[in-house]
Structure formats: structure tokens, C-alpha cells
């Protein structure tokens, strides 16, 4: 393909972009969309975008707290990129790796006490719990957005302080979630591939169960898997926890009741025991051939490559089916890099993060994680690594298709509390496992949410 055609293929007129974005955003109810994300990406122009200059502190030591890699290559490449920065700047980086849930608790404590690491790679609402403890990183975010095609709209929700243009965090990547399924079993059920609409999806799952190949979706307190699929399900029917004003609780609606009724149908196709599932359970069940369909990050594909080749041959992935709402409405885990104000090396910290987001570093890092990390800057959508394997490709759309935790309200302590207390997960568990009526379950969820959002 000629260079001109490639550019034209990528080029989207500003009017088209606004039209399509407006349609999607109106449906999604997004209120804020910065001009940066409408910026028409052009490599030549991008090359002229000047990086902000940071006068590094003398002999800086940057302390970073981040989550342990889900795949081995993640940490290896991250560390290699870090060494590159150290060599180029003479600075030093001390990285502490913790399990992703422990990072959140530790970051919260450091925010409370005002001491500890300089940079944290947190998750979801973390920066919005203590925004006044964080450095303004608008300069870095604006530069990266201009250079790399703009941030996905959901990243602006996660990165910016609500109602302002101030960036308090840089969304660094999403541990994207997609549907994983067994191709041969879906064919056995009479389908060429799993349907991409929820109605067809449920029908196919019923046929899979009838053939002795149940599905499996976590209904226990699985922080990652439980929250992501239940939020996708709820939003796909038009349900939501709270309105845009962040005060009016919207969970007790006919859309939610429809979602709960449909979830009950899906639950009938599941393997017994999903109410006890934490995050590792669906991986184990899928890789041992006990379930035919689940939702997960790309760890199933990654693990099956070497250890379960038969499963790997039969595995396919796809983005979450679309529900009656008519557009993608997913939730994936998203990680954000933020810098505490208590850092003695603010310039070095910003310089380091900018460096790690640059194509030479970020491109390599993302390419080697086998689809586990989905990009937050649009330019990285076109990395060749996404085409390495068809099972990886759907994951590059995760951030593009997702909404944010606490949709349609703002991110903050209320949305964080609602997720940490599994309000949505338990609502579905109440109906599917507990036998509660959808009305009663929605009412119970409403009571809990009212407490958090008052």
C-alpha cells in the first residue's frame, strides 16, 4: 500500500470524527472531550511536536511502585526501558513490584501519610481518591496526546480531574478483557463463531451447555473478572449505577431489570460453582477444558501457548458482544501512572514517565506483552505486534470500546467504594445464585449505592 494511501486510510476528517464520536459519546453519556483527542494524527507533524523540557534534579533517584507483570516479558522490557533512561540521564530508578491489588492499598497509604514512592502505577479510580496529593501532569499528557494521535476518550475521564482539563494521571495501559472461547465447541453448537450480539451470544451459550460445554463467568468477589463482565452486562442493556451528576442513583431501572433477567439466562449455561470464583478460577477452568466460554485478559492465550497447546489451537478471542444499547459498553482494568506531590524529584519523575511513553520504549513494551496491555494512545493501535496472532488482535480495541468505572457519574471515592464492595457483582449474584428477584436485587444495590454517593 502506498504511503499516501496508508495516510488516507488513517486520515479521518475532523467532521467525520466529530460525528462518529458524538454519536458514540451521546450514547455513552460522556461529557468531556478535549480538543487534543480530535487532533488529526500526522507523523510528520508529530515529529515536530516538542517534548516538554524538564530540568532534572541533581543525581535523581526515582522510586516507582508498580504492579507485578501478568506476563514475564512485561517486567523484563519495563526494566530494560528503565535502564535506558538511567543511562541517558544519569538518574537512578528503584522499582518495587507488588501484586496489583497490593499496589492500590500501598499507594493509598502513601497518599495518606505523604511519603513513599514518587511514581505509582495504580488502577481505576486511584488518582481520584487523592487528587490533591498528585502532581499536575498536563504538560506530559498534552505532549503525548499531540504526538501519538490523542488519548482515547475514556482515558481523558481517567486521567483528568473531573470537570477540569487538569491531568492528574497518565493512563498507561489497560489489562484488556475479551471473550475467550473454544472454536470447535462453538462449531459443534452450530455456529461458525460466537455471535457478537448479546441475544445471539446467550442462544449460543445455551446450545453449548446442551452439548455438555458450559460457560463460566465469575460471580464471586473476583476483583478483575467479576467486576468487568458484570459491568459490561449491565451497561450493554442500558443500565448504570449513577447518573452523570454523580448523585442520582440510576441502578433501579427497567434496563437493569432486563440485564438481570438476561444474566439469569446466561447463568443457566454456566458450570456450577461460579459464585465462589475469584480471579484465577476461570483461567483454570478454561485451561482444563471444563468451560467453553469466559471473559479474561490475554493470560489464557499466553499460558496455553506453551503449556496447553491443544487448547491454544482451539482458542479464539473476541470483543464483548454488543447489547440492546447498540454500542460497545465494556469495562476493562486500566492502569494509571501518577506522581505524588511529596516527590523530591518531580522533574525527573515527569521526564521518566514521558520517556517510558515514547514509541521506542512503549512500543517495545506493549509489543512484547502478547496483547496483555492495551494502549491508551491511539497511535499504538497500529503496532505490528497486534497482528502477531489473531487471538491478540481483539485486545487492541479494549480501551476504545470501554466506559469507565462508575459510569455515568464521575470517578472518585464513591465509584471506588462501589467497586471495592462488589455492589454490581453482588447484585448479579443475588439474582443468579441467591434466587432474589431482579427487583429486590436492584433495590438492594440501590440502597448500597445511595450510601456511597450521598
Amino acid at each position, binding site marked *: 500500500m502506498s504511503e499516501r494511501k496508508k495516510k488516507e486510510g488513517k486520515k479521518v476528517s475532523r467532521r467525520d470524527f466529530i460525528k462518529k464520536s458524538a454519536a458514540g459519546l451521546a450514547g455513552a453519556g460522556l461529557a468531556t472531550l478535549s480538543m487534543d483527542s480530535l487532533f488529526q494524527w500526522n507523523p510528520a507533524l508529530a515529529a515536530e511536536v516538542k517534548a516538554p523540557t524538564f530540568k532534572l534534579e541533581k543525581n535523581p533517584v526515582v522510586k516507582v511502585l508498580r504492579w507485578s507483570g501478568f506476563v514475564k516479558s512485561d517486567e523484563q522490557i519495563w526494566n530494560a526501558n528503565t535502564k535506558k533512561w538511567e543511562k541517558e540521564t544519569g538518574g537512578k530508578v528503584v522499582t518495587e513490584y507488588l501484586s496489583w491489588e497490593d499496589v492500590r492499598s500501598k499507594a493509598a497509604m502513601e497518599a495518606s501519610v505523604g511519603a513513599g514512592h514518587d511514581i505509582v502505577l495504580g488502577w481505576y479510580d486511584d488518582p481520584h481518591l487523592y487528587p490533591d496529593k498528585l502532581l499536575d501532569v498536563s504538560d506530559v499528557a498534552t505532549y503525548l496526546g499531540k504526538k501519538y494521535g490523542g488519548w482515547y476518550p475514556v482515558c481523558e475521564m481517567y486521567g483528568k480531574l473531573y470537570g477540569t482539563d487538569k491531568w492528574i494521571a497518565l493512563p498507561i495501559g489497560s489489562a484488556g478483557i475479551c471473550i475467550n472461547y473454544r472454536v470447535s465447541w462453538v462449531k459443534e453448537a452450530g455456529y461458525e463463531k460466537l455471535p457478537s450480539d448479546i441475544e445471539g451470544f446467550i442462544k449460543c451459550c445455551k446450545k453449548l451447555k446442551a452439548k455438555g460445554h458450559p460457560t463460566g463467568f465469575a460471580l464471586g*468477589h473476583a476483583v478483575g473478572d467479576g467486576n468487568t463482565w458484570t459491568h459490561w452486562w449491565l451497561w450493554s442493556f442500558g443500565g448504570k449505577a449513577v447518573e452523570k451528576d454523580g448523585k442520582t442513583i440510576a441502578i433501579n431501572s427497567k434496563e437493569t431489570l432486563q440485564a438481570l433477567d438476561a444474566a439469569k439466562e446466561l447463568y443457566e449455561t454456566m458450570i456450577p*460453582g461460579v459464585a465462589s470464583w475469584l480471579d484465577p478460577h476461570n483461567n483454570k477452568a478454561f485451561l482444563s477444558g471444563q468451560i467453553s466460554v469466559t471473559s479474561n485478559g490475554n493470560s489464557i492465550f499466553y499460558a496455553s501457548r506453551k503449556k496447553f497447546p491443544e487448547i491454544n489451537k482451539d482458542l479464539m478471542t473476541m470483543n464483548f458482544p454488543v447489547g440492546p444499547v447498540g454500542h460497545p459498553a465494556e469495562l476493562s482494568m486500566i492502569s494509571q501512572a501518577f506522581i505524588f506531590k511529596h516527590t523530591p524529584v518531580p522533574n525527573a519523575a515527569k521526564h521518566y514517565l514521558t520517556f517510558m511513553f515514547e514509541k521506542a520504549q512503549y512500543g517495545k513494551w506493549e509489543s512484547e506483552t502478547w496483547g496483555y496491555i492495551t494502549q491508551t494512545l491511539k497511535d499504538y493501535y497500529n503496532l505490528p505486534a497486534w497482528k502477531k496472532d489473531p487471538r491478540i488482535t481483539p485486545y487492541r480495541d479494549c480501551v476504545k470500546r470501554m466506559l469507565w468505572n462508575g459510569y455515568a457519574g464521575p470517578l472518585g471515592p464513591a465509584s471506588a*467504594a462501589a467497586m471495592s464492595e462488589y455492589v454490581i457483582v453482588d447484585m448479579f449474584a443475588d439474582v443468579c445464585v441467591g434466587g432474589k428477584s431482579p427487583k429486590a436485587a436492584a433495590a438492594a444495590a440501590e440502597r448500597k449505592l445511595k450510601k456511597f454517593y450521598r
Partner: protein
Amino acid sequence: MRSGNAGGGALKAPPVGLLQRKGVLGFLFTLPADIILLLLLAYPFVLGIWLSFTNTIIGRSGSFVGLENYIDLFHSDVFWLTAFNTVLYTVVAVFFKLILGFGLAIVLNKDFKGKGLIRAIVLLPWIVPTALSTIAFWWIFDSNFSCISWLLMHLGLMSHPIDFLGSPVNARISVIIVNIWRGIPFFTIGLMAGLQTINQTLYEAADIDGATPWVKFKSITLPLIMPLLAVITTFSIIWTFADFQLIWIMTRGGPDNATHIFGTFSFQRAIAGGHLGEGAAISAFIFPVLFISVVITSKFLKREA
């Protein structure tokens, strides 16, 4: 020796140094421990109580809100479920630990070949770090991969795996079983030590009088072991009531909050959810029960003395 004094009165005692004064040296010896207790126990405790009266959120100092957090909890379904779970978990687990631990102590107190080795093996559940043993039980009680289910299915006794942790009732039973397994050695070893202090001549005299084993147990063993039993039971109540890691590893308080106890619910609300004030209020409910346990036990001990 007569003290010599030109004035004719008794000699004045030489002045006593500060370190020789009664109480001062003792105070100084206990000072390091007092400082540690003050800083690492008393201060966090008082801070926690204070936080429970505020609307503090992670990363933001809060303001005094009086009893608002407590009132909110009283209106929360999840709180009452948690309270129920905690009491159920403690009462059932401690009861079985006591009965089984006591029985095992009586058996192990006898003389038999290999008793040293058996006693060491009995201590293992207590020695193994809770997190590790809990992870093992998490596998044993897995809804799809349980070795118990596998065995029963292979023996033809069941057609499908047991959902150990997926139903509220089963999940509660499972976590209680794990707690009992872990806690039996504490009762066994402690009571065994107590049994060995009982004078054997009492049993010999009872034998002469033709007392049955039950009469010997009721009239000799139980009364003499009661003070130690009360202390051990109190400790067990405290540790079981304030448990955290076992529930957190196995179920995270699920399914549907059916296994949440005060410790896990408090952590979830305060640290995961960021609401420090509310989390502190939840954990404050642990204190009165423990305080009452200690008071009852110490009264009991004083009476026995």
C-alpha cells in the same frame, strides 16, 4: 555492731541512689516495652477510635461527624450480615476447637510409643503460616478441582463436585472447618501442659474409690484445668473474632458477603474502598466483644484464685 555516733542516736542510713529506689528500676526495665506498646498498640487504637468519628477518606483528612458512621452501619444490611457471620464463625469454631482440642489433649497426655512424634505432628497446623495453609484449603475446597470431590466422584458416591465455597452455607462451613483445623493445636498443646500439672495421686485415690473415667474427668480434671481452659478459650475467641487472612484468602468475604467478618469488611471498606472513617467504625465493633471476654475471664480467674 553498735553504731558509733557522738550524738548518741542511730546512724542515718546512707542515701539511696535513684536506681535503687523501689519501683524506679522496675519502671525503667519495663519502659522499652511500654514505649512499644504505647506507639504500636495504644496510639493506633486511639487513632482508630477517633477516625471512626470522622468522615476521613484516603488521602484527605476528614472532619468530626459524631456517631454518623455508626448510625449508617446500623442501617446497613451488609453490616448486620457481617455481625452475624462474625458471631457464628467465632462461636462455632471456638466450640469445636475446645471440644476437639481438649479430647486430643487427654489422649496425647497418655503414655504411648511415639507420643513425642505425634505431639509434634499435631502442632503442625499451628506452625504452618496461616496464609499457606489457607491457600492449600482453597485448593481443597475448589468448586471444580477439589480433591475431596474428585475422590467422592471416583468412589461413585457423588456425581458432581461439591460447591464448597459457592453457596453461603457451604462457604461458612468451609471457612469454619479451616479455622478449627488451624486452631486445635493451640488448645491441645496448652491443655496438655495443664493436664500434666495435675497431681496423679488424685487419680489414684479416685481409682481406689472406684470412680469411672467420666467421674474422674468431671470431678478432678475439669475443675483443676478450668483456669487454664478459660485463658486459652479467651485467647481463641479474641483471635477468631479478629480473624482476617483466612477469610480474605479463601473467599474475600463472598459469596455475596456471606463470609464477611468484621476484619475483612473493615479492610474492604477502609483500604480497598478508601473510606477510612467507616472502616475504623466497623473494626471498633471488635473491641467491646474482646473487652468483655477478657473481663469475664479475669473475674473467673480471680474467683478461682
